[in-house]
């Protein structure tokens, strides 16, 4: 990828994740987050050159559900706005491209999901092929277990390795106030768990959550005004694998590997990586596809999606978590990753750096 024309940085981030948020509608829990993200950099909606969001009608169970949430931005006088039926990380990508096009210096991005009203494992079946696969109602977790079986039987990963990933997530999540699964467990304790979807154990599965997050992007000097140490987006790319699971090699992730190459992950050291791996198997594949060295790079210091999995926001939260660590000086160069679709079908990789 040629170098981005404009320097764009993540300058503000607010999130909320809970095992479920039963009493509040999406817009009711998003408004405080939107206000918080803007107030942290002393901006209002009128200061935003562009606004983009990610959410899904299939979670909300109603058509055009994102329109309700636009109310929360304060869209009068009318705003320049767009929406993706994707994780909010793809909304951030759209906003980043929009800033690259010029004419605006700021953008507001948010993503949210409330999966608790439905049965997520059925809801996610509807993202499969509508003629051949979805009518069979494949349990989305069972589909991941099929991929896990391939990985284990093919010698691509061991059950101990998966348990180590789960244990690491639990240990990191203990210091994340937004994590849902925070009880530490040893590798042996995890290996002693009964399989729920053989070969997967409870600790291999994502900790489902309701919630969302909001982010402010700013370009060049505007970012320097708003943030002491902006988290500059030095590279970003997204790729998609084939929709049909049967034609893919589920024991690796070609699209994540290509996205990482084009985002420039390997151009320099990586201090930390926030990876959207909903399952321990996905985190294992991503570490390999992104070419990360676990001795040199802190993997998922927030606990990742294993510790709190908010559909449509977990990818954008990875970008926010990585950016926050750059602001705080926990690292100088970070990688954030987002995924969408079954078995890591689509992948977005974003490289962030501090000055």
């Amino acid at each position, binding site marked *: 990828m040629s170098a981005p024309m404009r320097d764009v940085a993540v300058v503000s981030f607010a999130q909320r994740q809970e095992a479920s948020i*039963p*009493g*509040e*509608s*999406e*817009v*009711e829990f998003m*408004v*405080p987050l*939107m*206000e918080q993200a803007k107030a942290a950099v002393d901006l209002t*909606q009128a200061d935003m050159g562009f606004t983009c969001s990610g959410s899904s009608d*299939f979670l909300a*169970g109603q058509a055009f559900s994102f329109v*309700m949430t636009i*109310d*929360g*931005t*304060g*869209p*009068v*006088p009318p705003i320049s706005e767009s929406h993706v039926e994707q994780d909010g990380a793809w909304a951030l990508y759209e906003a980043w491209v929009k800033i690259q096009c010029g004419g605006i210096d700021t953008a507001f991005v948010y993503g949210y999901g409330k999966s608790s*009203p*439905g*049965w997520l494992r*059925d*809801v996610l079946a*509807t993202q499969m092929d*509508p*003629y051949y696969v*979805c*009518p069979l109602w494949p349990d989305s977790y069972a589909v991941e277990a099929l991929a896990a079986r391939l990985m284990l039987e093919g010698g691509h990963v061991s059950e101990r390795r998966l348990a180590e990933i789960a244990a690491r997530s639990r240990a990191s999540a203990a210091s994340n106030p937004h994590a849902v699964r925070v009880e530490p467990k040893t590798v042996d304790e995890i290996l002693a768990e009964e399989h729920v979807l053989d070969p997967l154990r409870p600790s291999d599965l994502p900790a489902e959550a309701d919630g969302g997050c909001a982010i402010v992007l700013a370009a060049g000097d505007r970012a320097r005004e708003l943030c002491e140490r902006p988290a500059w987006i030095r590279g970003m790319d997204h790729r998609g694998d084939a929709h049909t699971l049967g*034609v893919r090699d589920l024991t690796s992730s*070609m699209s994540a590997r290509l996205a990482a190459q084009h985002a420039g992950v390997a151009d320099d050291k990586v201090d930390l990586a926030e990876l959207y791996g909903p399952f321990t198997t996905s985190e294992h594949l991503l570490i390999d596809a992104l070419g990360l060295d676990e001795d040199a790079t802190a993997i998922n210091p927030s606990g990742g999606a294993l510790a709190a999995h908010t559909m449509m926001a977990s990818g954008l939260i990875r970008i926010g978590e990585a950016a926050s660590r750059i602001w705080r000086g926990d690292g100088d160069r970070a990688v954030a990753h987002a995924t969408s679709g079954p078995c890591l079908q689509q992948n977005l990789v974003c490289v962030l750096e501090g000055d």
Partner: protein
Amino acid sequence: MADDPLAPPAALAGDVTVPPAVAGAEPVQSVCTPIRLSYTYTPGKALSRYLRAMAERRILGERCGVTGQVFVPPRGVSPLAGTTTAGVVELADTGYVDSFNITRVPIERRPDLKPPYCSAWIVLDGASVGFMGLVINIAPEEVRIGMRVRAVWKPDDELETSAANILGWEPTGEPDEVIDDYERLGRADPGRA
């Protein structure tokens, strides 16, 4: 495949051969793949308050803390200012017709609606925005903009936490509202202030 990731799998190369068992069969023209998902839906804080009040024949709106406008049905947020609403406002079950249309075609799933019938945008006394309802107990062609109406509620023993508690809106017989002052109605564009 390993050498060229873009090359099609070998199985897809060449012509497709139809097995003899289905050769000559009538082609499938369409498939029906029903999709049904069920949700346990919670409407949120503002709409829950609104629906509970409905069961007591009360109509609740919510006030925008920035512009002062009152929205009904409330959604917990001012759709103009983008802020959490500042307070709950109990509204009268009277108002006026802001706009209306007369439907002369039946709707398949609503056999209870006998054409011609009148759907209206009703502004409740104390509200800043219109509210959807049917105008009843009057011939549709006699409905007019500005006409004063009041809610016709279901009998008390049939009230539920539902907007369906209001069967429709009937004329009060009061003089028509004079709609000449949008500022007074609170519908000024706050961006213009």
